[in-house]
Each structure stands twice: as C-alpha cells, then as structure tokens.
C-alpha cells in the first residue's frame, strides 16, 4: 500500500496527530499541537516551508534530532492534497509515516544498539566500547519525551539485553494524552547519530575513570 493511501486511511479512521502535529481535514490543514487560535497563526501553503520551521526551536537552539519535543509554534499549513500533507509531515518528521507503516506491517528492520555501535568507524569507532550500564544510562538521559526525543524505541541493547525500565523505554511514541486510535505513533528503529556521538563521549569518560 502506498504511503498516501496509508495516510488517507489513517485520516479516515479519525487519526489527527503525529508527533507535535495536529492534522485537520476539510480543508486539509496542519498546525502545532499546542496552538489553538488558528486565526493568529502564520499561514503557509508550501510544504517545503516545514524544513525551515523545524530547524530551530523557539529559543533559537538547533534541533539536531527532529523528534525533539521543541517544535516551534505559530504556523498553519493550508494544504491542497494528501501528497502535500505527506510531504509536509516528512519534512517535520523524516520517514515517520514510512516507519509507522513498516512497523504496522511487520517489515521494519530494527537495529539493536550494539549492532549500530559496532559498525561505527573513524573517530566514532570507540563508541562501541561503552559499557552495558553506560548504554542504559544513555537511553534514560537522551531518549524519551523528557529528554531529546518523542519516538517509541523499538530496539534493545542487543538481542540478549533489553532496555531497563524507564520513561524512555515505556514511551509509546505519542505526545500528550492521545492514544493509537487518534494519533500515529513515531517509532525509532535504530539509535540516531546523536546517540552514537554521546556513546562515544561516555565511552571516553568510562575509559578515563578506569583505575590505572
């Protein structure tokens, strides 16, 4: 099934949210979950504007991870068709619809953390040396809505070591109080490059803390 059809079916079933995006129909519109006064919002009709809007948070920080709970407010997209809606969503949350579709159909390719870290090279090759406890601490300090990202983690540390219970490991990929009947969950099939960079730092810190 095409992504357009998947999105259309989702909307027909009453889904109206993904990440911090609220989707309205008839006519098709998209705005920030926390904005309610549509009259006060800046109108956008070009999906490509989403790239610029999602670059920085309201306090000027660069949003390295697009799943960060820091999307700017104050905008309203008025869209012509489902293709434009898909494009806009993909610019705010790259590949989020395709990953959800693959997750639903059981075809998503999950990469456990150790596989991701073990294939790093160059200056990031030492990330693989981070301890198991270190990886758990990283998940709890980087992932989940209180930290950097609002995606549901699908991966484990490795095939024998699941994530320790935490807000991050329990998070369902849906912002706020909605559930899967009205919101498309965002899913994470492998740790991102931000995580890899932090794993490298932690690995270095662990090495420096080791007794001589």
């Amino acid at each position, binding site marked *: 099934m*095409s*992504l357009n059809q998947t999105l259309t079916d989702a909307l027909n079933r009453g889904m109206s949210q993904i990440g911090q995006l609220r989707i309205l129909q008839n006519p098709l519109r998209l705005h920030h979950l926390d904005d309610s006064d549509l009259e006060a919002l800046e109108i956008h009709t070009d999906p490509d504007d989403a790239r610029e809007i999602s670059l920085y948070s309201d306090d000027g920080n660069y949003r390295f991870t697009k799943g960060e709970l820091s999307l700017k407010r104050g905008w309203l997209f008025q869209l012509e068709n489902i293709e434009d809606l898909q494009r806009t969503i*993909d610019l705010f949350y*790259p*590949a989020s*619809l*395709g*990953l959800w*579709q*693959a997750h639903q159909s059981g075809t*998503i*390719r999950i*990469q456990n953390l150790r596989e991701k870290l073990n*294939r790093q*090279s*160059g200056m990031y090759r030492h990330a693989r040396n981070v301890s198991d406890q270190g990886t758990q601490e990283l998940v709890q300090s980087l992932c989940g809505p209180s930290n950097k990202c609002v995606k549901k983690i699908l991966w484990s540390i490795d095939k024998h070591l699941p994530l320790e219970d935490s807000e991050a490991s329990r998070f369902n990929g849906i912002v706020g109080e909605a559930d899967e009947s009205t919101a498309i969950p965002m899913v994470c*099939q*492998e740790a991102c490059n931000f995580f890899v960079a932090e794993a490298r730092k932690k690995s270095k810190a662990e090495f420096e803390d080791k007794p001589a």
Partner: protein
Amino acid sequence: MREALYMIEAEEIYVVPDFISEGYFTQEVIPRELELTGPTTRIHGKTIHYCDPVGVHPSMTSLILKRTDEVAPGVPQEESTLFIVGHGTGLNKNSTKAIKDQVSHIKTLPNCRFAEVFDTYMEEPPFIADWAKMATTPNVIVVPFFIADGLHSYQDIPIMLGFEKEEGQAASQKEVFRNNPYALHNKTLYYSAAIGTEAMMADVILDQISSFDANHSAPS
C-alpha cells in the same frame, strides 16, 4: 540514513553524495550506512545506484565561473587573479585533486581570460594566506570550494585573507559576503560564498545521475 528508504516509494533510487570530493565519507560511511555493495545494489526491494560526489563533476566549473561573475560583476578577468580555496588535508589527496582538476580545466577554457588561476588551501601549500604574494593583478577573486558556508568560509578564510581579525566574533553571512570588495595589500579583493550554495548545484546533482547512467549503461 537507513531511515531514508522508508520514505521513498520509488523502486529505483540514485544516491548523489553532496560532497566536494571522494573520501572517507563517500567511500566508506555512506556505502556502509546504505548497505551498498557496488555502483548498483539491490536491497530491501529497491535498486540503488551510487553516483560520484557533486564536487568532482566537470560542470562544477560553470558554478565557479558563475560565482566570479556574481561576486565581481564587470571586473575585467584580464586584470584579475582567481583563487579557488579548499580545506587541504594530509588525510586524503582526493580533496585537493578535485580543486586542482577545476583549476586545470578553467585554464584550458577558450573564454577564460583570468590573468592567473590558483588552487589554494587552508592547511597545506599553496596556502590561501599567501594570496597577496601570489597575485600580481589589481583584482583578486576568491571562491571557497566547500559544499556549504560554515566556520571555514565565515571565519577561518576571512582571517587568512586578512579582512577579519582572529580575536573578533565569527562573522555572520551578511557581514562577510556583503561587504565586497575589500581593499587589501593595494589590491581589490572579492570574496564569494561557498560554491555549494550556488543554486545551480541542483543541475550538478542531475549531471552526476546522467553521468552514472552513461557510464553504467548495459552494452547494446
């Protein structure tokens, strides 16, 4: 990068590295992350063609020359020296090769009237910091051979050229690129934005795809 396949519904994909030259990222990191096994890879129901990076395509020459016209409109080429600036690194000779190839190509163009064209670098000779000794013309045009503007083109190269001070704040794009020309060492210097910011880069990307098809077409 592995997420990208989930948002693409086309069966056939061309990957064009937006990099200035071949190197560690184009030869190791990108193929690893996209699980490529050669020029064409069939994986996860897709056919992926891996093209050369944009920086090595001959059509980059047009971008460089367009930049010189934009940054120094009406300035006679016969009275100008063109400097193309790269990073320069001992780690990979491919990056300097891309710039040397551009210089060689520009010099052979029948309509090239620059008095001199030099390849220069931030971290290896010939150093861009020595531009005033190398240029014998009254006008100098400097084009950073980088994919994007950043610390090198905003701060490092302006310091090496001499119109920004080391202890100053990092220059914003507005200040660095809109204060042309600069009067330095009895010459007039024009400093352009990084070559990768040129809108025609879109054409170079398409050119690399055409080159891929031309080089990998099945024999008839």
